[in-house]
């Protein structure tokens, strides 16, 4: 232990502790900007670039960055001297002198960390005048918009993309005043290996990285009387949307969300959970088919579009292992524009499917060539993130918290508990196992429903489940760095599994890149996951193959699961992509 003094308070902390950590421990607040420690997902950004956390250390002539300086025995630290306070103000003023000060019209107005910092330090005037960096916005990606003019060079995105996700799209490039966090060869984002997971957006303190905004197009479609606009909502949206309206983290707002969508003017308010059940029917069938016919195992879940893009760029030799199932919202689109359109007597060409997703990669996915075509055009026309939906609800003047609870519309609105847990890490594989357990052991009068061994928050988990006298080994990874480890083991023949679930975002979709900002607090993700499991528990039907609307769909339209019609509408293919 090391004895130190901070602002005349004596304390003792373990060796290696930084001044910032020690100060936080005893309730002394030091402002920070670039610093970000998320130990749960092994994200450590201690680059010390912003100098906002400067403090005075007795015996040192210059000021010291608290975030990246370890305490030493007998250190006497002052965080609240005039010199330290002035230095921090100067640093923020310098940052602001090269920042477009357009807070009123900025996407991050109200959630920007630089804005809060300026408020906290009471900045009223920026003394420094000089040239500002001017760059073009990169709007090439279907998911993420880069605006380097608003970048404070904190390098959180770089750490997230390189260390946590191991994708490596960002790096500090060029030099001095021209330095920016850019891509290889200044390539537009669309031409890089970016998986569109949006985790960089989740940790960006400003609006340098934001999601593409599709709300205007959706409002247009809703207002167009010739179009029939269908909304579908992902499992993880209903447990986070409330946060945008000040409700406690983990509040389930399924009923209010449905009511809000109806008020906004969607013609049908339906549920991606229905399609999650459909996905399980197909994926469990594909799994059993591969098992019985000597197909390649493990089977990898394919619900997560960022993970699918990751394997296409990084492991092109493994493209035969992911399940060929489209992701649930894409299945939904394909069925809505055929089966549902026919049932409703709506011209499929006039039907617009809007997916409300916790995800930014779904925006990219919706633009994939292989997910349009057939007779239906694009399966999904627009994807909105949870944040975008919240903005639209506010824009429409809807008092969200006062809304009554309403149900989804029918035909594609029913869902099981198995689909609800798609929203968190381990959920998809548990849903598959629930159904496979029944199908492979039809004699068992009381098949298992809850598979606790598949739940949890560790980055890579493995477990074996047994039914019908057979043992199945499954693995679960969330976060693309963990996915890479698992895939490398498979590639090298070190790991033998029957099935694997991979989600690109830490904690799965509850931590998705399109979710309300978690404020750098990972506890939020755990609470959201709890809400997902509560939703599951509250359902009367908890296995996908018992969903009556799904069964009706097969009976009336699709025929057999994994059959010909199902292949045509519900399955897809993958393509090799460059690594850059």
């Amino acid at each position, binding site marked *: 232990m090391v004895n130190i003094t901070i602002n005349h308070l004596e304390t003792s902390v373990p060796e290696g502790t930084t001044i910032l950590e020690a100060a936080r421990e005893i309730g002394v607040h030091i402002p920070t900007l670039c610093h970000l420690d998320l130990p749960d997902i092994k994200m450590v950004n201690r680059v010390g670039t912003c100098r906002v956390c400067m403090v005075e250390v007795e015996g040192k002539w210059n000021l010291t960055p608290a975030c990246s300086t370890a305490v030493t025995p007998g250190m006497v630290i002052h965080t609240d001297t005039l010199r330290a306070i002035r230095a921090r103000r100067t640093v923020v003023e310098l940052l602001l002198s090269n920042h477009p000060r357009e807070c009123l019209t900025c996407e991050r107005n109200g959630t920007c960390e630089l804005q809060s910092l300026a408020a906290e330090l009471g900045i009223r005037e920026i003394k420094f005048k000089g040239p500002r960096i001017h760059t073009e916005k990169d709007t090439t990606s279907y998911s993420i918009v880069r605006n380097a003019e608003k970048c404070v060079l904190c390098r959180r995105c770089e750490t997230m993309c390189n260390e946590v996700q191991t994708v490596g799209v960002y*790096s500090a490039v060029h*030099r001095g005043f021209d330095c920016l966090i850019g891509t*290889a*060869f200044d390539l537009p984002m669309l031409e890089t290996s970016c998986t569109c997971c949006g985790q960089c957006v989740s940790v960006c303190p400003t609006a340098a990285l934001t999601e593409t905004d599709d709300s205007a197009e959706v409002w247009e479609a809703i207002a167009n009387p010739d179009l029939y606009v269908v909304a579908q909502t992902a499992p993880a949206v209903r447990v986070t949307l409330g946060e945008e309206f000040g409700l406690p983290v983990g509040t389930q707002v399924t009923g209010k969300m449905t009511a809000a969508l109806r008020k906004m003017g969607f013609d049908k308010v339906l549920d991606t959970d229905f399609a999650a059940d459909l996905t399980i029917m197909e994926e469990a069938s594909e799994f059993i088919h591969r098992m019985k016919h000597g197909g390649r195992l493990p089977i990898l879940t394919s619900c997560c579009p960022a993970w699918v893009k990751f394997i296409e760029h990084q492991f092109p030799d493994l493209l035969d292992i992911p399940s060929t199932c489209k992701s649930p919202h894409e299945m939904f689109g394909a069925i809505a524009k055929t089966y549902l359109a026919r049932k409703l007597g709506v011209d499929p060409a006039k039907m617009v499917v809007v997916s409300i997703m916790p995800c930014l990669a779904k925006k990219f996915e919706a633009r994939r060539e292989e997910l349009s075509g057939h007779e239906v055009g694009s399966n999904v026309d627009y994807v909105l993130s949870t944040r975008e939906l919240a903005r639209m609800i506010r824009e429409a003047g809807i008092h969200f918290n006062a809304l009554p609870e309403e149900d989804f519309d029918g035909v594609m609105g029913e869902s099981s508990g198995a689909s609800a847990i798609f929203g968190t890490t381990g959920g998809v594989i548990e849903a598959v196992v629930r159904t496979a357990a029944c199908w492979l052991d039809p004699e068992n009068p009381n098949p298992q429903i809850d598979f606790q061994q598949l739940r949890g928050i560790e980055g890579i988990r493995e477990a074996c489940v047994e039914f019908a006298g057979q043992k199945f080994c499954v693995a679960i990874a969330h976060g693309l760095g963990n996915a890479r480890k698992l895939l490398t083991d498979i590639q090298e023949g070190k790991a033998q599994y029957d099935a694997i679930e991979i989600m690109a975002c830490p904690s799965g979709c509850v931590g998705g890149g399109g979710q309300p900002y978690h404020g750098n607090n990972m506890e939020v993700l755990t609470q959201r996951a709890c809400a997902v499991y509560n939703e599951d528990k509250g359902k009367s039907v908890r296995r996908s193959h018992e969903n009556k609307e799904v069964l009706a769909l097969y009976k009336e339209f699709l025929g057999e699961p994994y059959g010909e019609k199902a292949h045509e509408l519900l399955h897809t293919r993958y393509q090799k992509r460059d690594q850059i």
Partner: protein
Amino acid sequence: MTQETAEWTEPAEPAEGYPEIDALFDSLPNKNGALIPLLHKAQEVYGYLSQEIQVYVAQKLNIPAAKVFGVATFYSLFNLEKKGQFKINVCLGTACYVRGAETILAAFEKELGIDQTETTKDGMFTLDSIRCVGACGLAPVVMIDDKVYGRVTPGDVKTIVDEHLGQGGQ
């Protein structure tokens, strides 16, 4: 000018690999920190760091191409574009400057039809400026590759260019 006599060799297609880079990589006892030596070697052999070479080095070291590009753009010593056979550097240090170096630079720009930092279309000359080369007694000074020209006047510029045009390809 022909290919064979050029100072640098045209970078090979990535499919064929870059043997000089491979050889240096294999000879390094510690592969950590190999990035800058590999980039130096590539520039020495090929004259500049093409995108293909940067991607090749990235794959060799198993690091993102963005990181390689970050390092290549950080150090001004690395060229990202192909340079001319002769590198003309006009000194703009204080002594040269007060003795009219700017008019010398302008004369080269006019004679070659290019601006500072650019390369002539025929690949012969790259024009740039440098700061003091320590030969202030000879101001204004022009360096062409390693050769120093002192007390240059705007009238000398054409002669100097022609002299090198004559050498081109030799």
